[in-house]
C-alpha cells in the first residue's frame, strides 16, 4: 500500500500546492484513506471527461449556432432521434454501473479485518463538545488526544452521551457517526507516524466547531511508554499551593464534572484530568495546552469556548492553586 500512498500524496501535492498543513483526505496516512483517495481521483477523472465533453459542446454550440441575422427561413425542425437517445441513455448507464462496481470493490477493500494480536481497542464516547477515549485493554481513560501505534489496526467503538456526533480524521479514515442509543464501529491502520487532525463532523450545537481530534501515531515503543504514563496513578501534591489546588480539584467544584483517578473526583460530565498535562492541547483540542491558555481558561471558561458547558471564573489564589496542581498531572 505505501507506494500507492505516495502516489496519492504526490497527486494531492500537484493539485493543492501549498496546503501542506491541511487535514486532507488526499494526503492519506492509512490504508483506508489511501484507497478512498484513489477512488476519488478515479471518479474525478471520469467526471472531468464528462465535464469537458458537455461544457465543450456548450461552447461549440454557442459559438457556431448563434443567429447571424442574414439567414432565411427556419432551421431544420428536428423532434428526436431514437438511436441517439438510446446511446445517451445506455452509455451513462454503463458508466454508473462501472462506478457502482468500483464502489463495491472499495467498500470490500476497506472493510474491517479480523482482530489480530497487538491490535488496539478504543471505546470512543462523544460528548458536547469533547471526545472521551477509553482504552479498555489497558484500563485507563483519556480525552481528545488519541495515541495509536504504527503498524497495528485500531478498532474503535463509537457511542454518544448526548446528541449525534461524527468521528472524522480525514487522513486516517472516512467518518462514522456516534449515535445515542447505538454502538457503531470503525477501524483504521496508520501507515506513517505523525499527528493527524480531525474534528466532529455532525452538527451538535454551539461548539460543534470546537470539538477537535488529534491522533498521534507513533512507534510501538513510544506508544507503550505513553500507555504506561496514562496507567500510572496521578501525581501527588507536595507544596502547600499544590495541596490547595488538589483539594479544589479532587473534592471541590471540579469533582462534580471531572475525574482524577484514585481520588474523590469521579465526575463523568467533563474530560478525565488524571494526566491532563501529558496532552498537547486543551478545550476539546482547540488550543495548545500551556500555562497561559490554562490560566485564561480557568479565569473565564466561556471566553475561549463560548457556550461550552463549563461555566467557571476562578480568581487569583484559587486559580494559582488549581493551576499548580493541574501542572503536576503529567
Amino acid at each position, binding site marked *: 500500500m505505501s507506494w500507492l500512498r505516495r502516489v496519492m500524496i504526490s497527486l494531492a501535492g500537484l493539485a493543492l500546492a501549498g496546503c501542506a498543513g491541511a487535514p*486532507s483526505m488526499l494526503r492519506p496516512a492509512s490504508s483506508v484513506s489511501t484507497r478512498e483517495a484513489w477512488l476519488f481521483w478515479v471518479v474525478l477523472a471520469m467526471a472531468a471527461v*464528462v465535464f469537458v465533453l458537455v461544457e465543450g459542446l456548450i461552447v461549440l454550440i454557442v459559438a457556431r*449556432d448563434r443567429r447571424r441575422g442574414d439567414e432565411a427561413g427556419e432551421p431544420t*425542425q428536428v423532434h428526436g432521434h431514437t438511436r*441517439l437517445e438510446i446511446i445517451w441513455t445506455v452509455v451513462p448507464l454503463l458508466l454508473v454501473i462501472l462506478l457502482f462496481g468500483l*464502489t463495491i470493490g472499495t467498500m470490500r477493500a476497506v472493510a474491517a479485518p479480523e482482530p489480530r494480536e497487538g491490535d488496539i481497542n478504543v471505546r470512543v464516547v462523544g460528548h458536547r463538545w469533547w471526545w472521551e477515549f477509553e482504552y479498555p485493554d489497558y484500563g485507563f481513560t483519556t480525552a481528545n488526544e488519541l495515541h495509536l501505534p504504527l503498524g497495528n489496526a485500531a478498532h474503535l467503538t463509537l457511542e454518544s452521551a448526548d446528541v449525534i456526533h461524527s468521528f472524522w480524521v480525514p487522513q486516517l479514515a472516512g467518518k462514522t457517526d456516534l449515535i445515542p442509543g447505538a454502538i457503531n464501529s470503525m477501524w483504521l491502520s496508520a501507515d506513517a507516524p505523525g499527528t493527524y487532525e480531525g474534528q466532529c463532523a455532525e452538527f451538535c450545537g454551539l461548539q460543534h466547531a470546537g470539538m477537535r481530534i488529534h491522533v498521534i501515531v507513533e512507534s510501538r515503543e513510544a506508544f507503550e511508554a505513553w500507555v504506561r504514563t496514562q496507567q500510572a496513578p496521578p501525581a501527588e501534591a507536595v507544596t502547600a499551593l499544590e495541596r490547595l489546588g488538589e483539594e479544589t480539584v479532587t473534592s471541590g467544584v471540579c469533582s462534580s464534572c471531572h475525574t482524577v483517578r484514585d481520588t474523590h473526583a469521579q465526575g463523568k460530565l467533563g474530560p478525565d484530568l488524571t494526566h491532563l498535562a501529558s496532552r498537547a492541547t486543551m478545550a476539546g483540542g482547540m488550543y495548545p495546552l500551556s500555562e497561559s491558555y490554562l490560566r485564561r481558561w480557568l479565569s473565564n471558561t466561556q471566553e475561549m469556548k463560548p457556550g461550552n458547558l463549563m461555566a467557571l471564573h476562578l480568581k487569583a489564589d484559587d486559580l494559582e492553586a488549581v493551576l499548580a496542581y493541574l501542572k503536576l498531572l503529567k
Partner: protein
Amino acid sequence: MPADAHALTHARPTPASPGRPGLLGWLSTVDHKRIGVLYLGSGLLFFLLGGLEALLIRLQLARPGETLLGPDIYNQIFTMHGTTMIFLGVMPLAAGFGNYLIPLMLGARDVAFPKLNALSYWVFLFAGLLMNSSFVFGGAPSTGWFAYAPLTERAFSPGTGVDFWILGVLLLGLSTTLGSINFIVTILQLRAPGMSLNRMPMFAWTMLVTSMIAVFALPSLTVAILLLLLDRQLGTHFYNVAQGGDALLWQHLFWFFGHPEVYILILPAMGMVSEIIPVFSRKPLFGYRVVAYSSVAIGFLGFTVWAHHMFATGLPSAALLVFSADSFLIGVPTGVKVFSWLATMWRGRLRLTTAMLFAIGFIALFVIGGLGGVSLAVVPVDWQLTDTYYVVSHFHYVLFGGSVFAILGAAYYWFPKMTGRRLGEGLGKLHFWLTFVGMNLVFMPMHILGLLGMPRRIYTYAAGKGWEGWNMIATIGAFVVALSMLVFVVNLIRSLRRPPTHEADPWDANTLEWTTASPPLAYNFAEIPTVRSARPYWDAKHPDLADWKARR
C-alpha cells in the same frame, strides 16, 4: 386560415385588470395571475433575506477565528438561511411561475380550486413571517434546516426556536400540499381541447411531476415534525433514546421527504429551461416524450435514495449498496435531459437574450453539481466528503446554478407577459455575468475546502490548515453575487417604471400563453383554442412547418 389559428394570432392587445383595484383587490384576489405575482414578490423578498444571511455567514468565515458572529447567532443564521432559501425562496418562486403560467399554458381560465389557491398563498406568507419572527421572540431555531434529533429535543434546545420552526414548516407543508393538489387537478382536468398530456408544455409536465412528488413526500416531513413537537411539548419519546425512542428515526422520516424535496426544487427549473431553450434556438424541444418520461423517472427514483444522506450513520452494507445504486441510477434520466437540451440547441439559430444566457448557464452549472452528486453516491468517497464543504458546493451548484438560474431566466422570459414590458437587456447581461462569475467564485473553492478537511456548520476554524485563502475567495464571490442581485433589482424597478408596450409575443414563442395579451385578460382567453401539437402557436405562425405535420 383555420378558425383556431385566427383566434391565436389575433389576441386583443388591450389588457384588463384581473380583479378589484387597489390593495383590497390584491388581498382578496382568487385570480391565479395575481396570486402568482404575490408568490413571486414575496419569494423574491425572502430570497433577498436569505441572501443577507448568506453574506453574514461568509463574513464570519472569511478569516479564521473571526469574532463577528458568536456561535449561537451564527447557528441561527445558517439555519434560517437554509430554511428561508428552500421553503420561502425557491419553492414560492417556482409556485409563482406555476400559478401564473399553468392555466395560460393549458388554455384554461384559472386553476381548479381558485379559493384554495389563495389560501395556499396566505398560509405560506403567514408561515414565513412566523418563522422569521422567532429572531425577536427568544431566538431563531439554531439546529440547521434539517433539524436532527436528538439535538432538537427539549433537553438540548430548550428555547422556542425549534417550536417556531416546527409550526412554520407545518403550515408550509399545508400550503404546498394544497397547492400541489390544485396543480395536479388543474393539469389533469383543465387542458384545452386536443391537448393530450403529450402536447402540453414541458413546464406543465414538470409541475405535474413536482406536485405529485410533493403530495407523496410532504406527509413524511409532517409526521417527523409532529412527532418532534409531541416529544418537545407532550413528553413523548419518539426520538428520545433513553426511553425507547430512536435517534435515527428522525433522519429516515426527514430524508424520505428531504430527498424528493430536492427534485421538487429542481424539476420546475428544468421545465422553465425546457421552455426557454426551444424558443431561442428556433427548434422544438428534442425528444419531448423522453424528456417527459425522464421527469417521471426522476420522480419515482427520487423516493428510493434517501439514505444516501445517511451513509456515515452505521447502516448495514446491503442498505448502503441499494441506496448507492439508486443514487447512481437517478443520474441517467438527468443526463438524458441535459443531452436533450443540447440537441435542441444543436444547429438551431440561437438568440442570446438574457433569458437564454441564464438557461445555458443553468446547463453549465447544473452539470457540475450533478457530477458532484454522482461522486457522492460512491459510498467510500462519501464517507470522507459527506458533511463537508464539498457537499455545500454540490447542492449550491444544483440549487443556485440550477434552480435560481432557471428562475432568473424565467423572470426575464415571462416578465413581458406579466407586465407588458421587457426587462432591460443591457443590465440583464451585466446581471448574468456578475452572477455567473460570482457564483463560481463562491462555490468552486468549497469543493476544495471539503477535500482539505473542512466540515460543515462550523462558525469558525483554526488557521494553518490551508482553509483561509479559499474561504476568503468565497466571501469575495458572495459580494459579487450580492452586487448582481442589486443590478437585478435596479433592472426590475427601472423596467417597471417605463411605460408598457403590451407586446403579446416579444420572443416569437411557441405556446399558448403568448397568444394572450400582455398582461392577459382577466379571463385569459376570449375563446379556448383547440391544439394539435405541443407548439400550438408555432403551428399557427408556421403552418408549413407545423409540428402536427411532422413525422419524428
